[in-house]
């Protein structure tokens, strides 16, 4: 079965990203396919590579990046939500005249159409938020 996952909250403040991560891992462990993980609202903050959590805490951003690398996951950050909250890749930096990028490995910035496409293509879409 094909799953799509929507993450609507950032790391640490809410449990949503943690639960979404554990759920995504379980989907893969069950042999299902993850069509896409889409990050929206403050969920885009899961994609900043500039976080430095204490060493004895989980690194939520790195954990997502690693999972993406291991399973070739498509992790998409909503461009409109990212622009509002300062999540920037090379293209966005140039387009909006910014002086830095902060998108973590494994994530890509794209439009909301990617969420709708995930809804169309996947058999199940699960929303994690607050």
């Amino acid at each position, binding site marked *: 079965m094909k799953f799509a996952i929507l993450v609507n909250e950032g790391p640490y403040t809410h449990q949503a990203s943690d639960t979404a991560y554990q759920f995504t891992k379980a989907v893969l462990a069950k042999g299902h396919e993850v069509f896409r993980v889409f990050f*929206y*609202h403050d969920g885009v903050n899961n994609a900043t590579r500039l976080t430095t959590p204490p060493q004895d805490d989980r690194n939520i951003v790195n954990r997502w990046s690693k999972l993406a690398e291991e399973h070739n996951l498509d992790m998409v950050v909503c461009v409109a*939500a990212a622009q509002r909250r300062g999540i920037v890749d090379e293209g966005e930096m140039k387009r909006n005249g910014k002086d830095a990028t902060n998108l973590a490995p494994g994530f890509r910035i794209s439009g909301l*159409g990617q969420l*709708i496409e995930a*809804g169309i293509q996947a058999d199940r879409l699960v929303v994690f938020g607050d």
Partner: protein
Amino acid sequence: MSTTKQFMFVNRKAPYGTIYAWEALEVVLIAAAFEQDVSLAFLDDGVFQLKKGHQTKGIEVKAFEKTWGALEDYDITKLYVDGDSLKERGLTADDLAIPVEVLSRAEIGKLMEEQDVLLSF
């Protein structure tokens, strides 16, 4: 991509206090642009999104009301509101900025069961 699915957006949050309602509306318009079968359900505090007469100059945030008008341009006409949620909040359909279909919670529940995708914000 010619597949059409039934997408229902379940709106349960009041506007302005958080961004959820506004960003949900952005997804609604994209879903319509993808020519999906889009409907909106308003339950709980979500009914406050539809209250007419928003004056948002003082809080410097874009008002909702104008966007509701745009829904029709996108052929989004299936707007369902939970009657109990309205009543509990001292509202009637006359207080709302756009025409909607007022249903019972059970009726909205049935519609939710029929959907392919439920998006809640």
